[in-house]
């Protein structure tokens, strides 16, 4: 796959704060690329520079090998984390207005069908629910049939059902071989949707790769979870562990051996859960804190 976006030595400074510090990476055409990081890590600043909304302090962004300019907006679609749309217009009127900004657009009927807007097409945009609003914003991002779609925390604040519905929409977009750039707080979302992930913290890249490869690199077994009340006995058994969300987490390469060790130390196995490591475990391992910290 060819690189559709090339980010070279990108930096952004706000007064004395360095939000993004000399980062470089490439995004391949047709992939879903996830940008992860805790609050204040610099991911929104990075994505807004890639969208052309913020001017970088240093570095450059190349789209298909060329520096970005205003014509770039004909080829990209953006769903911002915080945005509003003009009041007093209906969903249909909003789509009509934005369609006039572009030379190439998808048909209104296709957008409405694709983003499940049929029932709200004539509704005032002020009267939309969170999920409906996100679907309209996604339709606006898709309107010009873009080559790249930027989705900045698109499911934040949505209920689980709306989140799942939104994931299905993104899967549909991916199926059309479009490049998707996604930032999210939800590790399950990133794991489910992203082909490649970039983890940033304090404005720096700390890891990049496919979710599978990254998990393979940092974990070699499973994770055993136990209630916090067995902590004292585990200390005596001299088994390495961490406490996360008031639970004991033990990373184990050989779970049979670990369970044997626990039984020998008279640790109660009541409440024991065993699972595969996920991106959240990796994230905590790499950054030392949870995404929502």
């Amino acid at each position, binding site marked *: 796959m060819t690189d559709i976006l090339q980010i070279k030595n990108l930096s952004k400074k706000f007064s004395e704060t360095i939000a993004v510090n000399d980062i470089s990476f490439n995004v391949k055409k047709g992939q879903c690329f996830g940008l992860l990081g805790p609050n204040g890590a610099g991911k929104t600043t990075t994505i807004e520079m890639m*969208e*052309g*909304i*913020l*001017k970088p302090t240093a570095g450059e962004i190349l789209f298909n090998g060329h520096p970005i300019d*205003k*014509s770039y*907006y*004909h080829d*990209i679609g*953006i769903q*911002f984390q*915080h*945005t*509003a*749309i*003009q*009041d*007093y*217009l209906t969903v249909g*009127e909003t789509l*009509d*207005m*934005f369609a*006039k*900004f*572009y*030379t190439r657009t998808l048909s209104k009927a296709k957008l409405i069908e694709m983003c499940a807007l049929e029932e709200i097409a004539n509704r005032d945009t002020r009267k939309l629910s969170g999920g409906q609003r996100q679907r309209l914003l996604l339709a*606006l991002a898709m309107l010009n049939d873009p080559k790249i779609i930027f989705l900045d925390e698109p499911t934040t604040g949505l209920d689980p059902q709306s989140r799942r519905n939104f994931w299905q929409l993104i899967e549909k977009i991916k199926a059309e071989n479009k490049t998707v750039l996604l930032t999210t707080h939800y590790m399950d979302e990133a794991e489910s949707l992203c082909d490649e992930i970039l983890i940033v913290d304090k404005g720096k890249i700390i890891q990049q790769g496919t979710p599978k490869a990254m998990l393979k690199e940092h974990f070699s077994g499973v994770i055993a979870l136990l209630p916090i009340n067995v902590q004292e006995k585990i200390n005596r058994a001299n088994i390495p562990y961490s406490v996360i969300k008031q639970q004991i987490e033990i990373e184990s390469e050989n779970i049979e051996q670990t369970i044997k060790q626990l039984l020998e130390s008279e640790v109660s196995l009541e409440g024991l859960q065993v699972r595969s490591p996920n991106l959240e475990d990796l994230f905590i391992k790499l950054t030392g804190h949870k995404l929502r910290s």
Partner: protein
Amino acid sequence: MQKFIAIFKARNIEFLRDRATLSWNFIFPVLLLVGFSFVFSGDGKALYKVGILDTQATELKKEPSSFIQLEHLEFVNYQQAKKAILKVDQHKIDLLVDFSQQQYWVNSTSSKGYIVEQLLLAKHPEMQRSQTTGKPIRYIDWVMPGILGMNMMFSCLFGVGYVIVRYRKNGVLKRFQATPLSAFEFLAAQIASRLLIVVTVTSLLFIGCNFLFDFYILGSLLNLFIVAILGASSMIALSLLIASRSNSEEFTGGMLNFISWPMMFLSGVWFSLEGSPAFVQGFAQIFPLTHMLSAARAIMTDGASFSDIADHLIILSLMSVVFLAAGSWLFNWNGEKG
């Protein structure tokens, strides 16, 4: 062009569907005009005002028993007969006397004119009568351009500046920025939309209020329309300049008030600045509203022609261009510094 039309249309729809704002734009000036028509409907003045053509007034002072010695009469000298007769037509003076020609002018519809005429004839029965007709200029005729102008000022300043800052703050501008729409297309559509709204609302108000109050209009309605367009353009451009960068509604609200309140008091909305210190009159010339109201009143009450008000129109045009150029240059979609 279609991007401009899309934004223009959307902004007009937004204004028309915002019922509360739309109603207020019509109700507020009508309420003020109705209020003023009641408050100033009576004539509480006991004084009679007599105009005297200048050269004769000098001679008259030599005659101690003449009409000019009467008490409770105010005498005003005029050098131009045409201008002075217009004052009689408009009931601004009750009688005009030319002693050199042994002639006087009285408005046949003026009751005060009749009283002063009797006083004159008692002293100078040889005087020849010339009759004029014409409606009186009431305070409401004078204040009406001020009230409509003030309504335009608030609509232009707050309807554009405040809205742009709100758009910037809640991310509407950021959403537009992420499209091929240029800042110029966006700003041009905002100006055109507000201009259409303000001029339409003002024209409808003018027609409706004229039906109710039968205003004194001596000059051309077309010239009045041109004044309204240039006045509104200059104030919209001023508003764009104020709102070009900020994303704080509080700051912009303060700035708009800082501009609009002195403009309201010093531009002659409620009272004339004639007789005020020269520096105050000079300072008032920096406001677009001053030029708009001066031109509008000159057309309405003095019948001023296009060339008579050309200086005001040139100043309003220059203000529009300068404010718009500065506002476009400073404009920022998302308020990012640097």
